[in-house]
């Protein structure tokens, strides 16, 4: 029967087609999965590379950031006499200050910085964007932009100089520990040598050093004997030599080194991002000739002082016409 055969053939064809179709689908599905896997793998590699790059940048950034500051002499004035809140406040001379880094900006040739008294004025100048400033006989088109600033660090330094403890070093290693401790106490309580009543002795035989704690302000006498302008220095691993002190052991006098017991702490350390709110960057002066920076600064000042030019009270102007210069931004 030809009809049935054809039907059967059709059925077969259908099945075959379906089978092929399914295979195709499976194949496509596999292909698709593989494609996806490949894509994800690629992305993974890219991301890993980016992470590595960022980590390296970070290492670089943090390694290079150091505050290294020689602080010039500051004049001191008396403010008041307060009541100490605790015993520890009374046993130390306490020093504290805040250190905040100035953030540098490299002022390129043809750029100027202008600081306004009011933030609003600065923002308006930036908003305006283009400014036509008359510099002597030339009309210069300047662009006003915000100043891109890097980050800085700020922190507090607290120094406690003990009035009751002294550091002793270069103690000879010639006696057993507890005997040396006794000798130290005996030597340091002799007021004729500048000592005072000793409360306790911490002795480290290995390093040949000790910390002597005096009763009340007995320590000041010892330190007063060390006259003159005394440099106290705290390195991570060094102690500066100071005056020496007699340590008597069996008729022999050994000179040991005495220095103030100082503790230094860092507090409230933070990295901050600098934002210039009142200072504006002006560009467009690259091609100026036959003029000097001071003249240009004066003209910029005059122009931006005028309200009709969109300006206001100006605090300071600086420009770079030749070599680039470093401008420092501070809190």
């Amino acid at each position: 029967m030809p009809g049935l055969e054809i039907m059967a053939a059709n059925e077969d064809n259908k099945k075959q087609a379906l089978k092929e179709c399914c295979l195709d689908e499976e194949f496509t599905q596999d292909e698709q999965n593989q494609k996806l896997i490949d894509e994800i793998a690629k992305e993974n590699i890219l991301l890993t590379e980016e992470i590595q790059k960022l980590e390296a940048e970070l290492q670089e950034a943090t390694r290079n950031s150091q505050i290294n500051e020689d602080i010039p002499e500051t004049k001191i004035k008396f403010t008041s006499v307060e009541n100490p809140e605790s015993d520890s406040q009374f046993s130390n001379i306490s020093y504290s200050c805040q250190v905040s880094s100035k953030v540098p900006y490299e002022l390129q040739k043809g750029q100027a910085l202008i600081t306004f008294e009011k933030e609003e004025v600065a923002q308006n100048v930036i908003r305006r964007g283009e400014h036509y400033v008359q510099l002597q006989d030339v009309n210069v088109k300047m662009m006003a932009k915000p100043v891109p600033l890097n980050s800085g660090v700020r922190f507090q330094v607290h120094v406690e100089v003990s009035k009751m403890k002294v550091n002793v070093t270069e103690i000879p290693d010639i006696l057993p520990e507890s005997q040396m401790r006794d000798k130290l106490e005996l030597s340091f309580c002799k007021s004729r040598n500048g000592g005072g009543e000793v409360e306790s002795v911490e002795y480290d035989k290995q390093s040949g050093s000790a910390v002597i704690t005096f009763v009340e302000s007995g320590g000041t006498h010892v330190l007063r004997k060390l006259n003159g302008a005394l440099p106290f220095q705290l390195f991570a691993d060094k102690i500066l030599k100071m005056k020496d002190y007699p340590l008597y052991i069996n008729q022999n006098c050994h000179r040991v080194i005495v220095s103030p017991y100082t503790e230094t702490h860092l507090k409230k350390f933070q990295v901050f991002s600098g934002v210039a709110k009142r200072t504006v960057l002006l560009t467009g002066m690259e091609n100026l000739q036959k003029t000097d920076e001071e003249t240009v600064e004066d003209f910029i000042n005059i122009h931006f002082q005028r309200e009709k030019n969109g300006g206001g009270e100006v605090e300071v102007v600086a420009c770079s016409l030749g070599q680039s210069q470093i401008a420092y931004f501070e809190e």
Partner: protein
Amino acid sequence: MLVPFPVPEVPLVFRGHIQQDREMAKSVISKLQISYPLPGGSAVVIFDDPNVAKQVLQQKEHKINVEEFWLRVQVQPLELPMLTTIQVSSQMSDQRVLVSGFPAELKLSEEELLDKLEIFFGKTKNGGGDVEMRELLQGGVMLGFAKDGVAQRLCQTGQFTVPLGKQQVPLRASPYVSGTIQKAEVRSQLVPQAVLVLNIPDVLDGPELQDILEVHFQKPTRGGGEVEALRVVPLGHRGLAVFTAKSG
């Protein structure tokens, strides 16, 4: 210094400090304060003229006339420790995070804020752990954790909704760069106008003693002069003489 993650903003201004070559970052020193302990039976005298102080200090002992008797006191120059060099290096901290994003209108005291943050970030269910250290900074709070890995975990999560009082505040945890002192040099600086008076016998009470001392130290015949300030710490009491930087 470039940091590839957000840090709190601080407004800065250019005040005219400009120079040719790039040196190490300069710094501004501010809020200088020195507290010097004064024992009972002492006084601090600040003279107008530092030369007067110098003259007064030439005699280690002063005899102060009080009606029928004499008070014997010791005088001493005043030297204060001053930071002259500071070297600080910074590095990423493995155990600390910076929490930021606090709204300006937050009405919590420092202590309250730190407590609430410690409570939230102290819970492992929030991704935190035992808080070892906390510090309020400008624009953020630093939290230090006892265990390794907590800080990293928190930074990876990044955003948190923290109950601060009545509000649920969205905050962010980011890596914290911490500082280490590499070198700190402290020198002794004389306060030229100051004289410390010590071992004042306990025979007069505060206000009377103040007057007697002022009179004595203002007498030009005794090498004295105009006194800017004089403070007495009576026996049985203790004081802290506070000094700050002269402005201008």
